[in-house]
């Protein structure tokens, strides 16, 4: 395999000064080193990429993903370490760079194309192709200011992919335009990959990572803590997400106290977690896999009208599914102080692939209006991925069989 990109011992440190005069003198003469605050963004990164390989980079905000991409596309210089690139590199750190709204489409194609490093001769040849890909044949005589934002991003993407580079760097710019154009752009990226383009891809969207990447690197606090196949790394990425939740559990009392002010403090959720059927804590579930939601509930007083409910919400906060104990067992629960009760809800993740949160509620009576003991938003996180089920659309999955019957008429 041909090595296209080799990153060795890459470190990037930003020096933060309070006094700008010190900053200028530091950059000129390396004096005043002690007056700065060191901000280590990337710490000893080693990574090699081969021809025709797509590597995804995941991590939280501020983990150093964008800095790494800037370093690879040479718009930032490393503090130490080397980056060896072989071949032509096009980086899409932002779409529509260099667009000038008062110029025409053709002029903007030349302007933006040359900005991201495409030769003028290539643009001359590919002009019609770009316009056709962006579906803008009817708008050629217009200034760019009369374009909608969707048209702009379509044009920008078409310019960027008009020539197949050896390395393509993408920073969360793939979700442009309508669904039809998104699929077209994904197909284009796949086509590049099959023809031998190495792709570095940063995204928060699990599905696009699964559909493009061969390997995924997990970046945390400036270090690559794991690199491997997408499903393994994405699981540990989710585990890392849950570490954050555990951190929050340390401050759980405070967190709960803030919320409970509207309700009473009589009953509260001590702990909540999600397990799969093998009792393993997991954040990423297959479509149609069982989810076991456990709640540990404590009480201060004797209560015998307790109802425990949960609701699953999607990325934009829409309620996807929810129920409560009163609906399930047609009765209320009772709970004694100094005893912890563990409640299990078992349900199937028949949801569309994506990210979901679970909100929990403890109340008296079947609605939350009578007595509200506790309401907890975003108590648990999980995500649903589709690995072996047939592709589907909508918000839920039901097992579907296709049967063809020949009718003799």
């Amino acid at each position, binding site marked *: 395999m041909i090595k296209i990109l080799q990153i060795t011992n890459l470190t990037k440190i*930003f*020096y933060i000064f309070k006094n*700008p*005069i010190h*900053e*200028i003198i*530091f*950059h*000129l003469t390396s004096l005043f080193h002690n007056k700065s605050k060191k901000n280590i963004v990337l710490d000893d990164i080693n990574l090699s990429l081969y021809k025709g390989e797509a590597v995804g980079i995941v991590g939280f905000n501020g983990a150093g993903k964008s800095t790494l991409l*800037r370093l690879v*596309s*040479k*718009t*930032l*210089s490393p503090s130490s370490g080397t980056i060896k690139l072989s071949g032509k590199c096009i*980086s899409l*750190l*932002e779409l529509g*760079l*260099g667009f*000038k709204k*008062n*110029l*025409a489409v053709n*002029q903007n194609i*030349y*302007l933006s194309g*040359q*900005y*991201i*490093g495409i*030769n*003028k001769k290539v643009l001359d040849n590919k002009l019609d192709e770009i316009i056709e890909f962006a579906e803008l044949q009817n708008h050629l005589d217009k*200034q760019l200011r009369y374009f909608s934002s969707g048209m702009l991003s379509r044009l920008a993407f078409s310019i960027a992919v008009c020539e197949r580079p050896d390395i393509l760097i993408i920073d969360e710019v793939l979700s442009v335009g309508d669904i039809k154009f998104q699929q077209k752009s994904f197909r284009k990226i796949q086509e590049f990959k099959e023809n031998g383009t190495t792709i570095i891809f940063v995204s928060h969207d699990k599905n696009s990572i699964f559909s493009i990447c061969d390997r995924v690197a997990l970046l945390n606090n400036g270090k690559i803590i794991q690199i491997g196949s997408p499903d393994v790394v994405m699981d540990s990425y989710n585990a890392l997400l849950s570490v954050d939740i555990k951190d929050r559990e340390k401050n759980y009392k405070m967190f709960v106290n803030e919320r409970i002010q509207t309700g009473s403090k009589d009953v509260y959720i001590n702990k909540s977690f999600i397990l799969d059927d093998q009792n393993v804590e997991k954040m990423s579930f297959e479509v149609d896999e069982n989810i076991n939601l456990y709640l540990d509930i404590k009480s201060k007083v004797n209560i015998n009208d307790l109802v425990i409910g949960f609701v699953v919400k999607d990325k934009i906060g829409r309620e996807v599914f929810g129920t409560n104990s009163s609906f399930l067992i047609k009765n209320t629960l009772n709970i004694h102080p100094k005893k912890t009760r563990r409640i299990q809800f078992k349900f199937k993740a028949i949801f569309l692939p994506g990210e979901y949160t679970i909100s929990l509620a403890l109340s008296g009576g079947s609605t939350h209006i009578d007595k509200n003991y506790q309401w907890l938003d975003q108590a648990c996180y999980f995500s649903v991925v589709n690995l072996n089920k047939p592709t589907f659309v909508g918000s839920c999955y039901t097992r579907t069989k296709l049967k063809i019957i020949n009718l003799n008429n």
Partner: protein
Amino acid sequence: MKIYNYFNLIFLKALSELNFVKGFYFYNIIWITLYPLIQIIIDFFIFSNIFSAKLGYNDDRSYSYGLYISCGIIFWKLFLDLVNKTSSIYYDNSNEIKKTNLPISVMSLSIITGCLIEFILIFCIFIIFQIIYLNYFSFYIFHIFYTLILFIIFSISIGFLFAPLTLFLKGSNQLVLIFNQLLFWSAPIVYPISIIPKNLQIIISYNPITMFINNFHNALIFEQVPRFLDCIGIIIYTLVFCIISYLVNKRLYNGILDKI
């Protein structure tokens, strides 16, 4: 890096910086030239009548002060444009520098192109005005070309000296304004050098702008070959500032990339 690959980009970027709108080139030219045209007319008809006696050239050219001042102002405007735009080059193009590896030289060349387009339009008006209204044309005009090239390099160098400062020290573009004011009034642009005291004349004659403006005046108004000392002076000044600002910017460039 081959600069000639970028000619098209430089030209398009310059056009958009001049706010040229697609399909309206004619109007754009009018907007750019209207203000300097008015300025030239005011200089010729009002200032020449008021100040002609003080100029010290006792010939029958009553317009000579108007010619003198508008010639100086045209070149000063070019200097001002170049310094202002170059001193904020990192600030204005921060997104491009951050997200693409377009060389800085391309950006500065597009600034030069934009300013030159504007300058050439105004300069042509100035020459046409001279010919039509005064029936006067200096055949020493060809001497301005090499001075102009040095003048542009000098202006860009001054701008690039301020460019890191405006990035690191927010609000320090006020410093550029003060610097420009001092330079403007310490050069014989609106006044002839002969009206100020002798001991001040020596100080002012060391101002690089004085040397440049002298060359332009000699070529366009006084119909003389540029003075040898002025030519040597501007070459030395241009070289020194060019080298200093190149070294400073090269040294600071990584810091600039971090800061943007």
